[in-house]
């Protein structure tokens, strides 16, 4: 099994609020949040992310969100595409089914974190994974929690893993 290829792994970070969070968060939340982060993992030429419909993938920058705000280079992985796909299939059947999506606790960033750890052993930047707890620690966040729990971020992507 010649699997000595190295595949680059990148993390695409998007700000869902389009800059508004940076401006309004001090007023609304009482603390500074630089953005409402959504992430996708780009490997093997595709961008993978978790949304309300499940694990999706598409071409990089191919979602409605367009270009990412920032890209983090996470190194390389030896995991080839097949293996990765199998891994995703397993995830899609268990932890990352569509109905498991929770805006605060089990969202796109949770997924990205897990995938990236699988691929490279590293984690994604902590400011992204800390976001839900930061929001929930403000009274405003507590107040809108019920609303957000019912929402799901689904930037599209016409290829949903695990759904047949």
């Amino acid at each position, binding site marked *: 099994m010649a*699997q000595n290829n190295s595949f680059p*792994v990148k993390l695409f970070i*998007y*700000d*869902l*609020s*389009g*800059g*508004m969070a940076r*401006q*309004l968060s001090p*007023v*609304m939340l*009482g603390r500074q949040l630089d953005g409402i982060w959504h992430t996708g993992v780009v490997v*093997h*030429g*595709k961008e993978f992310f978790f*949304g*309300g419909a499940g694990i999706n*993938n*598409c*071409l*990089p*920058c*191919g979602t*409605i969100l*367009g*270009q990412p705000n920032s890209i983090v280079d996470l*190194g*390389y*992985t*030896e*995991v080839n*595409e*097949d*293996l990765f*796909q*199998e*891994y995703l299939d*397993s*995830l899609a*059947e268990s*932890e990352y089914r569509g109905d498991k999506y929770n805006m605060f606790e089990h969202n796109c960033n949770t997924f990205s974190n897990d995938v990236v750890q*699988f*691929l*490279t*052993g590293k984690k994604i930047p902590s400011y992204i994974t800390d976001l839900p707890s930061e929001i929930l620690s403000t*009274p*405003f966040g507590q*107040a*809108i929690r019920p*609303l957000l729990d019912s*929402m*799901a*971020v*689904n*930037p*599209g992507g*016409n290829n949903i*893993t695990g759904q047949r």
Partner: protein
Amino acid sequence: MAEQGAADLGNNNNNKPEASEGTIIKVTVKTPKDKEEIAIAEDASVTQFKEEISKRFKAKQDQLVLIFAGKILKDGDSLSQHGIKDGLTVHLVIKTAHKAADGSSTSASSSTSTQAGNSSASSPAANPAPTTVPTGSGQAPTQTPNIMSGFGDLASLAGLGMGSANFMELQQQMQRQLMSNPEMLSQIMENPLVQNMMSNPDLMRQMIMANPQMQQLMERNPEISHMLNNPELMRQTMELARNPAMMQEMMRNQDRALSNLESIPGGYNALRRMYTDIQEPMFSAAREQFGSNPFSALGGNSDSGAQPSRTENREPLPNPWGPPNSSNPSESGGGTTGSTSTSGTTNPSVSNPLGVNPASLGNGMFNSPGMQSLLQQISENPQLMQNMLSAPYMRSMMQSLAQNPELASQVMMNNPLFSGNPQLQEQFRSQLPIFLQQMQNPEALSVMTNPRAMQALMQIQQGLQTLQTEAPGLMPSLMTGGIPGVPTGGAVPAENPASSPSSAATNPAQQQLMQQMLQMFAGGGGSGGGNGTSQTPEVRFQTQLDQLNAMGFINREANLQALIATGGDINAAIERLLGSQPS
């Protein structure tokens, strides 16, 4: 050296005897579905590790693929070679049987997954994808409806052009779009998130107070904090903010009213002062978040030096062909300096997203020197009163005051006219509901706007006062709820000389005027002294009606109308009636 407490783990087979004598480490093996902790010798090989795993996970060894730090662990490697130590996590993928056995089907499945490339929004600047080629399959590139709906309420945000990575740009874009497209604002307002936010007064207050500029502003003008702390007011404000139609209506009313006010000599000055005192800092506070304050330029243009209306305007009129929005040549007679556009005092919805109603700043308004000069002018010129009251602005303010007696009382109490006179205040407060009702009564309003009627009323009141002092015994029979003002009216002039030195800003004449006004309204406006309040016109004009009847004017309706129009003046009513009848 074999087992060192690894038995605690509950593992049945800890060390394989084949493993040489390394220490046992506990490695977490994680699959997408599962997680297990496996104890293995530190220097074991991957093969051995896999044996352990296959037992635990009940899978065949060749189905197992171990990944650590991005590397696939090959059988020939050892754990230490990869740096696998105690407590670390290794990822495991268990290949499903048919895929493991059949490489071709795997490649088939992977090609189907690459097939559906999303080409709609893909930009060419994306990462090059050497391994996958979008085969241009029949997937429809237009997923926008799906995306929009699936995206929930954030879709409108995305549509704002998130292509720009620069936040400042994004903001300005958003602002521009908001300004140019009022629909968007209403959309945003309709957003349940926003509405939820708006319906919680505590939240709104928090938000407002959290803004540092706002805090500064509140320090300078404590009335604003009063306003914020009044939950009733907040709720009204938020209702207003939530309902864009209402807000627009109010804006229009305000515009009209302000332009009316502008035509009052000296009123323009007052307006401008009002603006610079209160609204501008408020706007700057609200706007600073969103960008530069376009009105700061306007404020800077305003001339200094407020001159009372009566003196000649010595400042050069602004250039009417000057840049728009910075000059507002007003043609009204001699007292206006028109360099600041009154449109600056209106509330564009972006800069004032909270819909703060400057009329609600009534507390501050009445205390500002501008308002005082305005009141002064009003008292000296009844014509002003008429103008002022006919403005729809006043009307809506009166309405809101009537509905909100607390606010009205607050406003009135802060009125400098009353500040030196607690007795008057008390009296006013007790009569406030009546007063407000009278204000609502269109007849009272029409009386107020009729200068002759006003003068007549004043004469009556003066007469009553004189009577009071001359013949106190006569008055008790004429007392009603309103007339108790009269005895204090007698006392007021005595108090005034004492109080006026103490209250720096009040004018005894003004107080007297207010006093009289109060009495007039409490007295039911337009009646011939001593009648009860809010009687129907028929009752009030009973004597006149009878007289008209006797004269031959049989048409009761027309009589009534005429009498109402003239405020009870029989002669004028007759003229009216004659004018409408050919005979």
